[in-house]
């Protein structure tokens, strides 16, 4: 009788391997036996299977004690004495990478046959590298060693309905198995150890489970990780969006605001006017609706307590030219780092585009003033009414150790729409400035705004509020290509603005009943350099039409005025510094990037402050390479419940159409309590552990516990079998398994 012991791990297919070998011999007319040692193991637990082959009926049902041959499916199972009771002369067949031979020392005097079955199996798609299914591959090697023919073992595989890759692997293994003889003497058999003591009812250790360190069963180990939440990843200002939302969910507005103020000095502004790319990227959008981060930021700014400003303590001084969001941010960040900052503003008040370009119904003046006042609590000297010229700039470079320039976009794009005697169109930004100063009414007038950006929307909505009879926005592409914030377009239409898509103005003429804007219908063509579809004139006769109007507002975008920069300066890669004699100049905001949003300007300001700080102090505060983004594939949506987004209050439509009161009222306390807190708790905390305890609750072994502070989890790897349930249970991808 031939007896074989197979040593493998749960999941490798050891019992099936025994059946394959037994089948091959059965088909040759032999009596066979194939069985495993069954217990309550899971994947990875060491286990044994046995084969007996004989010419007569087999009546022994015991586990094999003295095998003729030993098969090892996983090299890491080999310990000294594995072959202790093996008969002399047999083969030890090991699945091992070719470059590993360290285990050979355990088998002195033995014939060892090796094969990299894992590589063959994985290359043929049988399992994965961490959980390879090597049984059919090893069957080929065993057949070769035992003197079965290739057709014998293929017949054995077919008998158990194996085909395809399994047979391919067996064939390769049959050819590739290597023979070795290990030098030395075979070790004598070891006497079997008697059964160990078992606790009695009145023994002190009664009740404890046997101290088997089942961690040895593991082929994988859980690791905790922190991924980059998609909201954080896309935030142009670099805010820890997830972090502040979590703090709001914990009813800690002070902490939430402190997190926001790490990066942005303008949370109350961003909480109103940010296009919120974080909400577009929010994984919750895949599930129900995005977390309303913009309103949560506003709530944090409104309810959180601002920390005390710190005085400057450094000697190096910095000039900031322009007090828009980029300038304010750079000044704020540098002041926090201890630099005295002097800020120059051409206008009478600070704020730049925040003040001149964003109407009060989106950003009330008192909110802006208050936020700027907080920035000025730091050591920042603000000089308004300073329109700097090129020669002034050169002087600054002598007075300060660094100069940051973010003067925004001062040149507006014009459009020639007719003869000199035609009614002149007005520029959008200029119009908004007049609206702000309150010296214009448009009662009963028909207004046409040309353009599709935020200025166009602001001009259109402002025009309605100062009495316009009708307001049309004409745009040469379609609504989905408009650069304006989605919500602003939405709200403009709600308020009664008419949107004419695929329309391009041709000429503006006078008539008896007022001005006439002649327009051309457009169609979308192939994409242009910006990636957006190129508008092409519609050639059909009805595509040319007239729109009567009283006022035309141009909102076609702006460009920067680089004439203030020292001679020879050019802008490279947006914010790149310029090498000059004297202090270095740093450029930022729309002036450098034309990114067009407050949050992008804030991000630019932070980077500029870090550049300046690195240049002046040598210290590098740039963040290291971020972790991978927790995209929806990491999130186990089935572990969450659908929860509707909390409603946000707005003022009445009548007031929206007639006055400049802020449209959005933010989250107000609802019947269930603070709506902002409920909304914040909808956050999935993508890729970042928030101590939800799912892993701890689901761990079938109870090997997970909280650390002493209760803030993190500890895996007891002595008893972790590497089952991966914690990884599967983690709803947010914060646990993964690594191969041992």
């Amino acid at each position: 009788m031939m007896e074989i012991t197979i040593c493998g791990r749960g999941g490798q297919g050891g019992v099936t391997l025994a059946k394959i070998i037994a089948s091959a011999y059965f088909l040759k007319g032999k009596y066979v036996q194939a069985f495993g040692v069954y217990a309550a193991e899971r994947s990875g637990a060491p286990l044994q299977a046995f084969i007996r082959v004989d010419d007569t009926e087999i009546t022994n049902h015991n586990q094999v004690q003295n095998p003729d041959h030993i098969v090892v499916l996983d090299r890491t199972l080999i310990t000294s004495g594995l072959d202790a009771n093996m008969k002399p002369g047999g083969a030890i067949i090991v699945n091992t990478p070719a470059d590993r031979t360290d285990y050979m020392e355990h088998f002195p005097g033995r014939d060892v046959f090796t094969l990299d079955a894992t590589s063959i199996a994985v290359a043929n798609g049988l399992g994965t590298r961490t959980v390879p299914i090597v049984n059919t591959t090893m069957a080929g090697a065993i057949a070769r060693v035992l003197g079965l023919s290739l057709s014998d073992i293929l017949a054995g595989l077919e008998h158990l309905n194996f085909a395809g890759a399994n047979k391919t692997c067996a064939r390769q293994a049959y050819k590739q198995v290597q023979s070795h003889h290990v030098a030395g003497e075979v070790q004598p058999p070891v006497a079997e150890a008697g059964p160990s003591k078992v606790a009695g009812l009145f023994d002190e250790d009664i009740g404890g489970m046997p101290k088997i360190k089942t961690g040895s069963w593991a082929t994988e180990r859980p690791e905790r990780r922190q991924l980059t939440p998609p909201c954080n990843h896309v935030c142009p200002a670099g805010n820890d969006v997830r972090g502040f939302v979590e703090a709001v969910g914990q009813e800690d507005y002070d902490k939430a605001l402190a997190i926001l103020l790490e990066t942005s000095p303008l949370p109350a502004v961003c909480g109103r006017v940010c296009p919120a790319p974080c909400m577009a990227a929010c994984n919750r959008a895949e599930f129900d609706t995005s977390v309303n981060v913009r309103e949560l930021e506003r709530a944090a700014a409104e309810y959180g307590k601002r920390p005390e400003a710190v005085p400057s303590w450094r000697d190096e001084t910095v000039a900031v030219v322009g007090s828009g969001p980029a300038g304010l941010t750079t000044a704020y960040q540098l002041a926090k780092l201890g630099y005295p900052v002097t800020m120059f503003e051409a206008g009478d008040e600070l704020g730049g585009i925040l003040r001149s370009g964003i109407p009060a119904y989106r950003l009330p003046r008192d909110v802006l003033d208050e936020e700027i006042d907080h920035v000025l609590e730091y050591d920042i000297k603000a000089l308004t009414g300073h329109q700097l010229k090129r020669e002034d700039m050169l002087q600054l470079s002598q007075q300060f150790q660094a100069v940051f320039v973010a003067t925004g976009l001062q040149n507006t794009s014009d459009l020639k729409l007719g003869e000199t005697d035609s009614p002149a169109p007005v520029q959008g930004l200029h119009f908004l400035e007049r609206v702000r100063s309150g010296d214009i009414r448009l009662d009963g007038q028909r207004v046409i705004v040309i353009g599709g950006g935020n200025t166009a929307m602001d001009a259109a909505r402002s025009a309605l509020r100062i009495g316009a009879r009708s307001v049309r926005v004409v745009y040469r592409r379609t609504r989905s290509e408009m650069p304006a914030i989605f919500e602003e377009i939405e709200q403009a239409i709600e308020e009664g603005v008419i949107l004419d898509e695929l329309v391009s103005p041709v000429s503006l003429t006078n008539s008896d009943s007022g001005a006439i804007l002649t327009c051309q219908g457009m169609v979308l063509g192939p994409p242009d350099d910006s990636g957006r579809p190129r508008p092409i004139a519609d050639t059909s006769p009805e595509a040319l039409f007239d729109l009567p109007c009283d006022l035309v507002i141009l909102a076609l975008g702006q460009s920067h005025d680089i004439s203030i920069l020292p001679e020879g300066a050019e802008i490279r890669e947006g914010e790149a510094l310029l090498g000059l004699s004297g202090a270095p100049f740093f450029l930022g905001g729309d002036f450098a990037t034309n990114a067009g949003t407050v949050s992008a300007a804030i991000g630019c300001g932070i980077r500029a402050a870090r550049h300046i700080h690195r240049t002046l102090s040598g210290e590098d505060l740039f963040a290291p390479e971020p972790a991978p983004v927790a995209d929806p594939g990491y999130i186990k949506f089935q572990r969450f419940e659908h929860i509707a987004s909390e409603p946000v209050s707005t003022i009445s439509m009548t007031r929206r159409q007639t006055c400049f009161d802020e449209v959005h009222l933010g989250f107000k306390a609802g019947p269930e309590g603070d709506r902002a807190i409920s909304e914040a708790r909808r956050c999935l905390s993508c890729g970042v552990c928030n101590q939800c305890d799912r892993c701890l609750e689901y761990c079938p072994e109870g090997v997970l516990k909280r650390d002493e502070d209760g803030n993190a989890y500890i895996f007891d790897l002595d008893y972790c079998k590497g089952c991966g349930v914690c990884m599967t249970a983690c709803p947010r991808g914060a646990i993964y398994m690594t191969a041992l």
Partner: protein
Amino acid sequence: MTRTLATGNNAAAHALAMAGEANRQARGCCAGAYPITPQTEIIEYLSGYPFSKGRVVLVESEHSAMGVCIGAALAGARTFTASSSNGLAYMTENIFAAGFYRLPTVMLAVNRTLGPPWNIWVDQGDSLMMRDAAWLQLYCDSHQDVFDTTLLAFRIAEDPRVMLPVIVAMDGFVTSHNQMVVDFASQDQVDEFLPPCVIPHHLRHDHPSTFGGMTFPNETEHHRYQIQQSMDAAFEVIEEAREEFGNVFGRRPAGALEAFETEDAETIFIACNTMAQTLHNVVTERRAKGEKIGMIRTKLFRPFPRKALIEAIGPAKRIAVLDRNHSPGSGGIFWQEIAATLGQCSDMLLQDYLVGLGGGDVTPSIINEIIDDMNERTTASDPEFRDRPS
């Protein structure tokens, strides 16, 4: 005949399926099924079997599984199921009902230790717990024995002289999950061996009757007496069934027991199931060296074959029983039965060895130690636990 490779579970399930299929010309077949380790493969196999007339009813518990068998048998169907261990314990109330209703159901008991402490390996305590439930019990020592005895069980159960349910037991894992060579049979052969199932008291709309109603003591005693008579008749029925089995299949499964080298043996060792095969191998070896020892493999536990056992023991005065089961406060359950059988022989040395409890591997060396121990004995002691750690 088809020679094939099968696990013990495969062999049992295939025999059950073919027996059920054989009743397709009569009132068909039905199984109530609920899985439990190590019996699950049987339920899986039956659930996928394309019965011509009959079905497997998947239920929520073992108690209901037996309930389905009872209902279907009362409707006249050939019925069968399988269970193990704590599942069998949960089934108990209805197991008694099937026995006392006298419904010829066949159940595969894949022996597994009753917990707690939790244990999935072989121990016969689960099926032996059904000792008094009016079921016949047969214990199988090999895969072939499982296949053949399962078919045999239907013939015995449905014989009008018996009309009682039958448990066919095998070792969990050692037999159930071990793949070995088995000779299967064709459906034609099974059809020939198993005549249509006729349950004389099955329910009829044209002849309304009731079962299990209240009875007075004397009526109940008569009911028990009738069952005892049927149990007594079973010995003869089993022998006839084996004879017929041999005619159809060309081989004869063991009956009540098998004796080996007992004629001139001074000491006889008694065991059942795969343990008996190991014992057989050891006795063969030691006989070859001249030791006057023999062995008996007990297969039939209910009815207990007292007469056959006394005959098989013959003049031997030293008997050792190997029990893979334990009745706390007494000892091995086979030992109790044998002691009751040999009660009148006051000069007998009868020793019980509790071995392989909870699924321990009963190796030839353990059996040799028992034989050595027995050879040195002059008196019997209390039942002895052999594998117990200190």
